[in-house]
C-alpha cells in the first residue's frame, strides 16, 4: 500500500513552539494520513512530546498551524475545539489516570462525557475494551492499586475506548519491562487495525519495538524535522538520524 493513496487527516505547517525564549520546535511540517502508523523518534528533550501535544492543541504553538481534516484548529471556538478533540485519543506519558475514580469509570469517562451513547452502553464498551487489554478483573480497583504496566494498559483502553480517528501515544513503553512493552505495542497495532481509517502517532525511544508497528518514521532533532519517511529510505538520511535507528544515540550527536 502506497502512502499517497491515503487521505491526509492532520497537517502541521511551520509549527513552532517557544519555551522561555528557546525554540523547542522550529518550523515543523508534517502530515499524518489515514490508515498509517507514524513513529516519532529523536534524542531526549528534542521536542517530540511537545509536538504530540500541539496536535490536539493541548499546547498552543507560537507560530504555525495545525489543520485537522481541513480545519485550522486555531480558528475554532472553545466548543468547536472540544468537539474536534473527540476525534482524538491520547495516551499520556505518565498515564494521567484520574486517581479519584475506579478503573472502569476511568475507561468509561470519555464515552460518558462525549454523550454519544447512554450510560449502560458506555459501561459495556468500557468493559469490552478492558477485556481487550487483559484487565477485565481490574475494573472495580483504583489506579493507585495497580502496577505501572497495568496502569499503562488502562490508559491505553481509555485512549481507544471511543474508537478515535486519530490515536496519539506518548512514550507507551516508558518504564515498563520488556514483556509488557512488547504487549503494549502489539495492542497499539491491534487498536489501529480495528478502527477504519485510523491514523496513529507513536512517540518513543523503543526503535526495535516500533519497527514492526510503524509504517513511517519522523525524526525530530533539535526541534526540527531531520527525517520523514520509511525505514527503507534511511540511506539518504543524515548520520545523526541513522545513528538513532542503529541505537547509537550518543555517537555523532552533539550533546
Amino acid at each position, binding site marked *: 500500500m502506497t502512502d499517497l493513496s491515503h487521505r491526509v487527516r492532520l497537517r502541521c505547517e511551520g509549527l513552532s513552539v517557544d519555551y522561555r525564549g528557546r525554540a523547542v520546535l522550529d518550523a515543523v511540517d508534517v502530515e499524518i494520513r489515514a490508515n498509517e502508523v507514524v513513529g516519532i523518534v529523536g534524542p531526549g528533550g528534542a521536542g517530540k512530546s511537545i509536538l504530540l501535544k500541539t496536535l490536539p492543541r493541548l499546547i498552543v504553538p507560537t507560530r504555525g498551524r495545525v489543520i485537522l481534516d481541513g480545519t485550522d484548529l486555531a480558528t475554532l471556538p472553545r466548543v468547536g475545539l472540544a468537539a474536534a*478533540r473527540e476525534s482524538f485519543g491520547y495516551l*499520556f506519558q505518565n498515564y494521567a*489516570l484520574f486517581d479519584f475514580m475506579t478503573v472502569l469509570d476511568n475507561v468509561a469517562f470519555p464515552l460518558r462525557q*462525549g454523550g454519544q451513547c447512554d450510560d449502560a452502553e458506555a459501561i459495556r464498551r468500557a468493559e469490552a475494551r478492558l477485556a481487550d487489554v487483559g484487565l477485565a478483573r481490574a475494573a472495580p480497583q483504583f489506579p493507585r492499586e495497580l502496577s505501572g504496566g497495568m496502569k499503562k494498559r488502562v490508559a491505553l483502553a481509555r485512549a481507544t475506548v471511543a474508537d478515535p480517528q486519530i490515536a496519539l501515544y506518548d512514550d507507551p513503553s516508558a518504564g515498563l519491562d520488556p514483556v509488557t512493552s512488547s504487549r503494549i505495542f502489539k495492542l497499539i497495532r491491534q487498536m489501529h487495525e480495528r478502527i477504519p481509517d485510523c491514523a496513529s502517532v507513536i512517540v518513543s525511544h523503543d526503535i526495535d519495538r516500533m519497527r514492526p508497528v510503524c509504517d513511517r518514521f519522523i525524526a525530530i532533532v533539535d526541534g526540527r524535522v531531520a527525517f520523514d519517511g520509511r525505514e527503507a529510505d534511511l540511506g539518504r538520511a543524515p548520520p545523526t538520524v541513522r545513528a538513532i535507528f542503529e541505537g547509537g544515540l550518543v555517537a555523532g550527536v552533539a550533546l
Partner: protein
Amino acid sequence: MALHALNTTHRASGNILASLGRPFLSAGRFLSELGRLFRDTAVAIARGRFSGAAVIKQAYEIGNRSVPFIAITLGVLGLISVYQVATQVAQIIPDFSMIGAAFIQMMVREFAPTITGLMVATRVGSGIAAEIGSMVVTEQVDALRMCNADPVEYLVAPRTIASAVMVVMLTAVGVVFATFAGMLVGKGAFGIPYNTFLSLQLTGIGDVAIGVTKALSYGIAIPVIASQAGLATTGGSAGVGWAATSAVVNTSFAVIVIDFVISALAFLVH
C-alpha cells in the same frame, strides 16, 4: 566612545523602568487571568454545567472536614477575646453587663466571618491548589480536556458552589463555638452569668447581613483563587508546593481586602 556611553545609559534607564514596571505588569496579567476564571466559573454555574454529586462531595470536604479546625481556632479566639477585654474592662469600669452583647455583635459582623474565612483560606485554599496542581503535573487536567470535560466545569464550579454555602455555615458554627468558649471564660474567670453574656441586644439584622455578605464573598473568592493557582502549576513537585503556598497567600490576602471593603461600605452606609 561617547555614542557607546549614550547607548548604555539609555539601556540602563530602560532597564530601571522595566524593572519598576514589571511587577505591575505581572500583577495586571495575574488579575486579568483571575478575572477570566471568575467569569468562566460564573458562566459554568449559571448554565448548570456542573455535577450535583461533585458539589456534595466538595461540600463535605470543605465543610464537614473543617469543623474541628474551625471549632478549635474560633473557640480559642473566643477565649482570648473575652479574657483580654474583660481584664481591660475590669480595670476601667467594673461593669461586665455589656461584654457578652458586644462580644457577640463583634463576632457576628467581623471576627467570625473573617477568621473563619482566613482558616478556610488556609486549609481549603492550599488543599484545592495542591489537589488541582498535582492533577496538572500528572497530566490529568490535559486528560480531562481530551475527554471533552472542561476543567472549569468539572473542577472549579463544584468547589465554588460548595464553598460559598459551606463558608457561611462554618461561620455560623464559628460564632457558636466562640460564644460558647467566651461564655465559659466569662463565668469561670469573671463570674459573668450565662444569661447576661448570651445577650443578642446589640446584634441587629444589619450585623447579620454584614457577616453573611462577608462569609459569602470569602466563600466564592477562595476556591476560584486557589483553583487559579492550581491550574497555573508548572514544574513537578516543586510547582505543586509553590501553588499551594501562593494559594494560601493570595486567598488570605483576598479575605483581608474584601473584609476592608465590606467593612468600609457598611460604615459609610450607616
